[in-house]
């Protein structure tokens, strides 16, 4: 397996050194693995902290900046960060107005952020947490660890980030973040498995001519395997899986997200099919975002996330943002 790396052990640190070189507007502590916006702590502002395994870039470090996250802590590849990182990040960005942890629903992330919240509170910080769990592929959640957190994380971080930037108090920022979670659903598809640097070979075996439906973002296999489908058929399947669970009464934000190895040419083509299905199902679309945002290393494939938005959520989505991976309006 050919990769543009030195050795697997330093992949995350090396990437952070590169982020530091490319983004002087961020403070990147490569050793302790914390990325902080340079002007933090911002006075009178609720701070947003997120984090999770590496390998999902630009999530989360790429979303640090005005209008989105105050800090991010990247873990090892596909492994959640440790509580020390989260506490360090929270302490660095807290202005005295409290910290909101944005946590994806994976056992490791949940446990480590839970421990971090306790430790941060011992240090006198006010901490709230919101759990992102948007993946409809996990159906019988009473027999699992619950729905995974995937693409909706971007919507939560953007909208709650805008609310915090406007100076809303912690309870309100937290409530809006929860509203976004409750209004969002995702479905993912893999055309190939990804390869982690440590393992050096694909994490699961996906024969040519087949695809996995209902994948998460950690190179784990999906719920079902089928013969390869067209973009048209995949869009029908993914959007219908979401609409079986979420019947939007309001317009939706649409995220057509690449898993890392699918070119934009294909993603835009797929976005056209997603739009077609939504039009056929009479779901109004407020805004559409297409690109690689919540990736899974070099996995080929995509995910769709829908978030139904009222006037306030849409206004916060439109608000200015200035981060390495998402920027508009400033």
């Amino acid at each position, binding site marked *: 397996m050919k990769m543009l790396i030195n050795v697997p052990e330093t992949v995350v640190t090396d990437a952070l050194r590169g982020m530091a070189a490319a983004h002087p507007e961020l403070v990147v502590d490569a050793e302790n693995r914390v990325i902080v916006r340079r002007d933090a702590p911002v006075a009178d502002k609720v701070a947003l902290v997120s984090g999770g*395994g590496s390998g999902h870039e630009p999530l989360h470090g790429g979303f640090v900046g005005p209008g989105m996250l105050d800090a991010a802590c990247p*873990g*090892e*590849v*596909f*492994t*959640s*960060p*440790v*509580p*020390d990182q989260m506490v360090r990040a929270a302490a660095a960005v807290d202005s005295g107005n409290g910290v909101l942890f944005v946590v994806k629903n*994976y*056992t*490791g992330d949940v*446990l*480590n952020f*839970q*421990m971090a919240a306790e430790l941060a509170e011992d240090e006198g910080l006010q901490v709230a947490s919101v759990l992102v769990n948007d993946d409809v*592929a*996990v159906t*019988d959640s009473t*027999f*699992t*660890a619950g729905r*995974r957190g995937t693409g909706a994380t971007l919507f939560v971080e953007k909208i709650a980030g805008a609310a915090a930037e406007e100076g809303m108090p912690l309870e309100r920022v937290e409530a809006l973040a929860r509203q976004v979670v409750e209004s969002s659903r995702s479905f993912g598809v893999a055309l190939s498995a990804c390869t*982690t640097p*440590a*393992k050096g070979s694909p*994490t*699961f075996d996906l024969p040519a001519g087949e695809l996995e439906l209902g994948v*998460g973002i*950690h*190179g*784990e*296999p999906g*719920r079902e395997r089928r013969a390869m489908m067209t973009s048209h058929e995949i869009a029908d399947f993914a959007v219908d899986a979401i609409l079986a669970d979420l019947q939007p009464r309001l317009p939706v934000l649409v995220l057509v997200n690449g898993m890392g190895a699918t070119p934009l040419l294909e993603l835009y083509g797929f976005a056209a099919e997603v739009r077609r299905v939504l039009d056929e199902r009479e779901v109004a679309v407020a805004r559409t975002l297409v690109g690689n945002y919540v990736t899974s290393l070099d996995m080929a494939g995509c995910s769709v996330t829908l978030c139904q938005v009222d006037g306030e959520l849409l206004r916060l989505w439109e608000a200015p943002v200035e981060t390495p991976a998402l920027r508009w309006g400033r």
Partner: protein
Amino acid sequence: MSDSELDAAFFVRWMVAAAAAVEREADRLTELDSAIGDADHGNNMQRGFAAVVKALEADAPTAPGAVLTSAGRQLISTVGGASGPLYGTLLRRSGKTLGDAAQVTRQELRAGLRAGVDAVMQLGGAAPGDKTMLDALVPAVAALETSFEAAAAAAEEGALATVPMRARKGRASYLGERSIGHQDPGATSSALLFATLAEVAA
């Protein structure tokens, strides 16, 4: 070994042996994890136990309880994922239960580990039968009543018994039925922990 001889040095030897076993078996743990998880259990445990050994070398505790709490703290700070908090809590809670006695008996160690396993159940919300580390830990702690060898055998048997189970907790749970037929990597690493305990007690 008689029952009253478990001192801090014994617990340090256990942790060093566990680190060596994790190192030796890292590829196998990762291979098991790639079938139903995300292919990193071996590397994560390796990184954590290397830090445990380093910390114990730098500051050698004089009580069994302190050895386990130190090890648990290192695992929480270095492993990440679910394994860090779960293994960290297992050892930390066990260590705290042992207190600062200079020596403990096998029965006292069993009571300490029992408290640790309870804390793991509470933190992770899992129970035996969910295809997790508990499927090795729970029978192992029960069998420690009899002997170290019995505990190691029960842990190994418990790990093997996860093969036909359907995962209900952790990342493997997302596979549903497809998790059946694969041995749980967490139960496998737990069996290693008890195998090395029997090894250093022999």
